[in-house]
């Protein structure tokens, strides 16, 4: 008997893969024409503005993680380390250094060189990374200060005095960025194109949030770690496009259909888990299997929050005054992204309640201090407040040398035994 929604189920992964390949094909074509691209990052990419200048957008973080997923990262890391880059710095940066030295050669195609780079202060490594391109290519590197929460639980919302003052600063910087884009491309800023792109993003973001909400269902319709990363790629790469808007509308439909039909990503969902941190890309699928083999499903993650640039935050761009709307959206979303890294214990309260999770897996990686430095303490604080099973793992997002699958498996097995004992105790 055919499953309900036969053509719909699985559509997101199929179309997502096609869209990502199409995006890289466009980048390859741009590189071959000798065109420059706008280099941006997932937290505060501003692609809606950059697309209004018809600049192709390159996400070096995505390029770098792809080298790990495609298992070619080791040679990239070695090449950068031979140039003097330390084993102790961000692996994404080193993979990009090697990609640039190889003329943009990449497992997904060819990456055009930068015409400019735009980055926010959501991550300090963004800044150091941008400085490398500044030196290598002598291109403009626009650093946009996006002031984050000053402390845990900072209340902020449009209309508040402090928020509006921060927003005024962000908006002023965006006007300066517009002039930089005009100078780089030789084109005049077209506010209507920005408005149109923001409208596409509003639609995509609405669909994204519906899809995230669908995972409240048990069984969960998608795996936040594997499927979620594909969707994230589309969200970042195709923000501000009609294709992105349609994709997320379709995705929401698919996930809601699966939720309503009781179709889970795993046939026998025994444990609902949350993932905190950055995935283990060197053994991306195998890492997930360590959990799914025991009936564990990642139903949510802080990764889907911060690596989407805070897209879970409930906002939509104001289209009346697009630049101001972009500034407000940027401030709200980047703040939400950064909060979910630095104050992840608070984000977990929301995720645990909303997704009815049984346990939390913290994944600290050598390569990324932003997401990893505070995980041990966040876990401690969470466990002081709540009764929840948790596991803290350490490996890396890029460097196979510090990923020990056997050690990971031992710890994961012990975690599941603890989960089972906890459930048995609760039932007794």
């Amino acid at each position, binding site marked *: 008997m055919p499953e309900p929604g036969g053509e719909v189920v699985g559509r997101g992964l199929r179309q997502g893969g096609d869209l990502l390949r199409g995006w890289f094909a466009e980048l390859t074509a741009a590189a071959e024409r000798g065109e420059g691209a706008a280099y941006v990052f997932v937290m505060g990419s501003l692609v809606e503005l950059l697309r209004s200048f018809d600049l192709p957008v390159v996400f070096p973080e995505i390029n770098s993680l792809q080298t790990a997923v495609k298992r070619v990262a080791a040679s990239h890391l070695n090449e950068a380390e031979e140039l003097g880059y330390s084993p*102790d710095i961000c692996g994404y940066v080193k993979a990009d250094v090697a990609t640039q030295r190889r003329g943009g050669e990449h497992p997904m195609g060819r990456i055009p060189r930068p015409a400019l780079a735009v980055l926010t202060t959501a991550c300090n490594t963004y800044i150091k990374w941008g400085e490398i391109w500044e030196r290598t290519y002598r291109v403009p590197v626009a650093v946009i200060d996006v002031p984050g929460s000053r402390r845990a639980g900072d209340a902020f919302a449009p209309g508040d005095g402090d928020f509006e003052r921060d927003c005024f600063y962000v908006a002023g910087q965006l006007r300066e960025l517009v002039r930089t884009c005009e100078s780089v491309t030789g084109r005049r800023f077209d506010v209507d194109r920005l408005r149109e792109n923001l409208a596409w993003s509003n639609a995509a973001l609405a669909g994204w949030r519906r899809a995230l909400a669908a995972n409240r269902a048990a069984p969960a319709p998608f795996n936040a770690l594997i499927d979620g990363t594909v969707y994230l790629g589309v969200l970042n790469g195709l923000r501000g496009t009609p294709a992105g808007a349609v994709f997320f509308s379709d995705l929401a439909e698919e996930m809601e259909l699966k939720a309503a039909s009781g179709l889970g990503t795993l046939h026998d969902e025994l444990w609902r888990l949350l993932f905190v941190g950055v995935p283990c890309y060197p053994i991306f699928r195998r890492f997930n299997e360590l959990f799914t083999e025991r009936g564990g499903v990642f139903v949510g993650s802080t990764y889907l929050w911060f690596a989407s640039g805070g897209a879970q935050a409930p906002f939509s761009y104001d289209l009346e005054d697009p630049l101001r709307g972009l500034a407000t959206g940027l401030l709200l979303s980047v703040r939400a992204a950064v909060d979910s890294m630095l104050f992840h214990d608070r984000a977990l309260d929301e995720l645990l309640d909303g997704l009815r999770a049984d346990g939390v897996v913290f994944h600290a990686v050598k390569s990324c201090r932003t997401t990893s430095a505070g995980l041990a303490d966040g876990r401690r604080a969470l466990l002081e407040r709540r009764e929840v099973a948790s596991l803290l793992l350490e490996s890396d997002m890029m460097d196979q040398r510090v990923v020990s699958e056997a050690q990971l498996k031992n710890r994961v097995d012990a975690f599941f035994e603890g989960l089972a004992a906890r459930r048995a105790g609760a039932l007794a």
Partner: protein
Amino acid sequence: MTPGLRVEGREPVWSGWQGKPLGGLLEACRELLEDTAYPTVAAWRERGGKVVGHFQVYFPEEIAHAAGLLPFKVRGAPLEPRQAESRFGSYLCSILKTSLELALDGRVELDAFVAPPICDAARNLVAVWGRNVAYPCRLLVLPQNAGSIHAADFLRDEYERLRGELAAIGGRRAGAAELRASVALFNENRRLLRRLQDLKRERPWLLAVDEAYALAAVGGMLPREEHNALLAAALPLLAERPARRQDKVRAVFVGGFCEQPPLDLLQLVARTCYVVEDDLLIGLRWLEEDVAADGDPLAALARAYLERSAWSPVQHDPRKPKERMLRAWVERSGAEAVILAAAKMCEPGLEDQVAFAAALEEAGVPFFVSEFEENMSSFDHLGLQLETFVENLLFDA
């Protein structure tokens, strides 16, 4: 000076240096710096004073001072981070752990903690710190888009918010008059520190790098009035010091903007090098000229931070490309070599090492690359390498 001399009408929190000859004064500074009981902070608190801890690199101490608070520079510590170790991941610099340890084991009691998000690790520090203590902890956002015409207004506003929060802690709002007085006091401190740097650059045989460091660094744990008195007493003694020029290499030292190398390491460097320029505790000297003491003091502090300031790997400013700034230091100081140090696991420092090395290579300036940790205790290998480097330079000359 005589023991027990009053400073600005009140008893000093530290008189250990007073009445001592130069050698004793320098030794007292070093002892204070390495005293993990932090007696000056304790003495301040015993008198009912409140303390705001601020993490590296730069903090507008004038705002805390004007509110009647003691600004205490949190810059790591020579101790084992027994409790803090469990709060952080494995791949992390030492300064974060030892700094937090000060708070966790209670040896430094603070009333507030402030940190700028200087790097990916440090931006987590406020979150971790705040989860472990009851007093207010906040990030201070210092602009990274320093070239924006909006940055100064934003920073002035950030300082205004800080002023309000510190008033709530200290029980005294810093008005314009208090702020101007604090600006004047800190201007004097910066002038004295500049004289110390000048002396080191112009007659480095009078002042070894570890001695200069100790003299400057104690400022982070003293009321600035007292630090000014200390420096004012030390500078003439240094100028008259009967020291002879030796056959050492004039070197620039970089890598000390955040985590601090141990004093023993600096002593080791001083055996073979005259450090004529460095970024050790650059935050104390971040503002390179006097801040206007008239007009709006918060706006003046903000403008000075952006427009008349030093440089470091953790501030992005396209007007101050770091390699060019380093080469300017080399030229200004007449240095023959550069020591490119970086704290272990310090991403900004390690990343800039690559660019610095390339720039120095291109300019034909010899350089020595090294990593350090604040609590390292074995220097034999490093000493041998540095000695070989220096010998090669002297031999080639």
